[in-house]
Structures are given as C-alpha cells and as structure tokens.
C-alpha cells in the first residue's frame, strides 16, 4: 500500500487532489549498508524481468512488492529496468543500502540491496517510500536520506532504485 494512500485513509480530505503523482513524497535518500559486505557482482548484461511465481509473489512495479520493504525512490521496474537491472543509459551506484524483507512466498527473510541507478533525470514513475528501520542521517549506514548516486561513476543525478536479493537473513 502506498504511503500516500495511507495518508488519505487517515483523513486528509483534500489530499486526494494533491497527492496525485505530481504531489509526491519526493524523498531523496536511501539506507546504506554493506558496501563491503555486498560488493557489486561483475556487471552482466541481460536482466530478466521477474516472472510472477509462487516463490517470489507480487509485482515489482508495485510499491507493495515484498522486496520494497525499505525502498525509497522511483522503482526501476517502472523506468525501463527491472528489480535488479538499471534502465538503459543509467549507471548503478557502487555503494548500496539494504533492508531485510520477509518473502510471503517462502516465509523466509531476505537481505535486499537497494542500489540507485544514476546519470539521468528522475524517472518520475512509481515513487515508493517505505520507511521502516530508517535512522537519522547522523547514522549514515542506516539512514535513507542520502542520495548514493553522489558516489557513483556518473555522480549525483538520481534516476531510480532497484531491489535485488543479496542473501538471506
């Protein structure tokens, strides 16, 4: 469920008009972790979009998808990428932030890495903001208010975020 929906539920009457896609949360940052623990695997070409399956249920272009439990940004699955590939012409951030998400398909907890894809303007589609476990930016490795593209090869400009599995809890 999207945060904006929840706000609406909570009774803001004229929020409906405002929290259209244009009236979005506009969050910038990301929970970093594991730059050492989860180095990037060698870049390969050829990501496959996830086929729905019993073991990995849900739609990667939906904010509700189980892997998005700690994501914050535009979903790359809506931007020409997938849950683990950057859209054409964008570069992944070398550092990454992680969350631990429960997969209802197999009842396991997975460690999910939320790399940013960088070097073009904001994708602007499927903004997803799930804030659990976030800490203030004085705890950078757990704070989701940083834009990690700043550390990428192409610098600060942020396009979208992926949600790939890097391990199990």
């Amino acid at each position: 469920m999207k945060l904006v929906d929840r706000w609406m539920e909570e009774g803001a009457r004229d929020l409906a008009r405002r929290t259209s896609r244009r009236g979005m949360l506009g969050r910038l940052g990301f929970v970093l972790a594991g730059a050492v623990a989860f180095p990037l695997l060698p870049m390969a070409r050829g990501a496959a979009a996830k086929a729905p399956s019993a073991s990995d249920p849900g739609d990667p272009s939906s904010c509700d998808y189980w892997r998005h439990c700690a994501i914050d940004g535009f979903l790359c699955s809506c931007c020409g990428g997938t849950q683990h590939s950057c859209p054409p012409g964008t570069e992944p951030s070398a550092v990454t932030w992680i969350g631990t998400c429960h997969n209802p398909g197999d009842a396991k907890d997975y460690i999910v890495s939320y790399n940013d894809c960088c070097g073009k303007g904001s994708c602007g589609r499927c903004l997803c903001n799930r804030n659990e476990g976030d800490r203030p930016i004085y705890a950078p490795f757990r704070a989701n208010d940083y834009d990690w593209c700043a550390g990428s090869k192409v610098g600060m400009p942020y396009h979208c975020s992926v949600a790939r599995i890097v391990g199990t809890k």
Partner: protein
Amino acid sequence: MWRAEQRRRGRPRALACAAVVLAAAGHAALAQLPVEPLVNEPALPAHPGPHWVWVNDVVFDYMADGRAYLIDADAGKFRGMLSTGYGYVGVVPARTSDVLYSPETYFARGTRGARTDVVTLYDPKTLSPAGEVPIPPKRAAIMPMVNASVLTDDERFLLIYNFTPAQSVSVVDTKSRRFVGELDTAGCALVYPTGPRSFFSICADGSLLKVGIDEQGKATGSAHTGKLIDAENDPVTEKGVRSGDTYWFVSFKGQVLPLKVAAGEISAGPRWWLTSAQERRQWRPGGLQHLAIHRSTHELYAIMHQGGEGTHKDPGNEVWVFDTATGARTRKITLASPAGSIQVTEDDKPLLLATFIGSHNLEVYDARSGKHLRTVPDIGLTPTTMLLP
C-alpha cells in the same frame, strides 16, 4: 494490505512481517531465491518495432530538465528516457544509422549563465550519449514541433531551425559529426525535407523557400515559389505531414493543402476540406501535432474539436480519418480523453497514439477500429510531440 494493518497495530517494522505468515506455510518446500547480480538492461533494438514511440516533453514548469521518453505501446511500457536540457523540442531518430540526434541547450547555471547548444548523439541501443556536436547557440526557442529539426532524406545532414530573431538553418554533417555552416532563410521558418539534399521553409508572405544542399552542406541555390498559403485569412498550420513526395497541410478552418515536392519542385495539389460546409460551422482541426499519416493506406488522421477562430491549438475529442486519394472521410474515432498530439504507426496493424500537453498519459488505440487499447500513465509533465523511432 498487511502493511496497512500492521501500521494500525503499531507494528510496522519490516521484520515484523515474519509474524504474518500468510499462505507461506504451503510453500515450505520451495527452494531459496538466488542472489541476484546488479546488471544493466540488455541492449535495446537500434530500430525498435513499429509500435514503439518517442514522446518529447518540454517540462514547461521546469524547463531546465527536458526529456524524451521511449515507450513500447504494445506492452504499455516505459523503456527508457533521455535527459535533454533546457526548452527541449525533440529527438530526431535516424533510419539508416544507429544514432539518435538531439539538439539540446544548456546554461552554465541551469537557467542563467553561458548558453551552450549541442547536438547530442545517443546510442539507441543503450540510450547513452555517444558524442556531441557543438552548434551555434541560435536554436529556435519555440513550442515543440517536428519540423524544427530534421534530417535530409539521405540522412547526411541534420538541419536545425534558428531564430535569434534572424532566421537561418544550422547544418550538421552526420558523417563528420561536425557543424558545417548556416543557411540563410530570412523571412522563412522551419525545415521540410524534399529529397536527398533539399528542403523548403515556409515564408511569412505565403511562399515557400526551396533550398538545395551540396556535399559540403552549403546551399546550391534557393528560390521562392509563388504564394501558396493564405497566411492572412486562413493559414495552414506548420504541422504538415509527409507521405512520399507529398506533404499534407491543413488550414485553421480545415482546408487541406497537398504539396507535391518531387524532383526539387513544389506544386500545390487540389485543395479539399476535412469538413462539410455544414460541419465547418462547428468543427475544426487543432492541436500541437494534430495530423498523422498512414502511408501505405494513404490515410490522413486529424484531431477535430468544436470551436471557432483562435482554437487552432485546442485539443479535440475526435480523430477523423480521410483517404487522401479521394478526400473522403472513412471513419471517425472517439477518443477516451482529449488529444493535442497524435501519431499513427506505419505497419499493417497500426496503432493510433495520442497525448496532450495538459495530460500525463499516452493513450493507445487500434487505428483501424478506433478501440481504446490502453493508457500508459505518467509519461512526462507536458508531453509535446511523438516520433516513431
């Protein structure tokens, strides 16, 4: 939904999800999901299928951050985008080479400071910049329209309309990837290719300026036609469309002007109306890219609305389809939402694509039946023109 419920119970943490087992017990035998590499998307086709489209966006409220979006209209999917700078007009796809040309403008401080105009060359397979050609900072700052920047028919030269307000055309050699000069088109605007190395511009007096280009990108000569357009009383819009050696222009009131451009010469064909005398009292064409053509069936598509003089840029709720061979209207398509821009794919199961600068959606219709097939949402802030890659 579990998440919303958790919120209400005050147990929102991700890890708490583990407590909500749902139907997971039934999947206990499933293998663990594999670790996934972080990858780039595979290369796109250099020349995508006929149902992909580029949608340009000038982003009128935030003009420093213009874009072009690549959409697969069959899948209803956003395939990628280009970031294209200040006051963006549009991308120019090439037919004969693997490159996208994009005339772009940047300021050293976003919306102030030194201006730099370039043609960025993008690799259509990766959507990454593959090169950059500096051009004079004279690119016309105009409402986006297709004939502001075009390739010659042989795709050797990219021609860019300048307005400072002196009028000229910048010429970029696509072979050497260099700016090679400027053609004077005083009194005349835009660029309409007429052959391998020739084009015309439309002049304020209603004549057309014919220009030929040599191997160096210089003018081999230029000449005016007689007055073909009534700029005063019922001008044709700049949004003519081309099929082979004929351009189809339409006047504010809805009269069609066919222009034959064979062999470097230009002649006006017989004019005809989109509307009956009766319809003309109420209906007019209008929009930002209000005409489209399906060449193999010689069908002309026009966005129509009810309105009078001064409504030539208004969107419409209907698209009327005409047989250009006879001038007969073959059908009407009722749109799901008002459109200011349309495009028709050039295949035998054509799609009618529609958008509107006041919308954020791309609408996809079966061009034959008029059936609304799908909406591709959230395509830009102020989408302008569409080009087929």
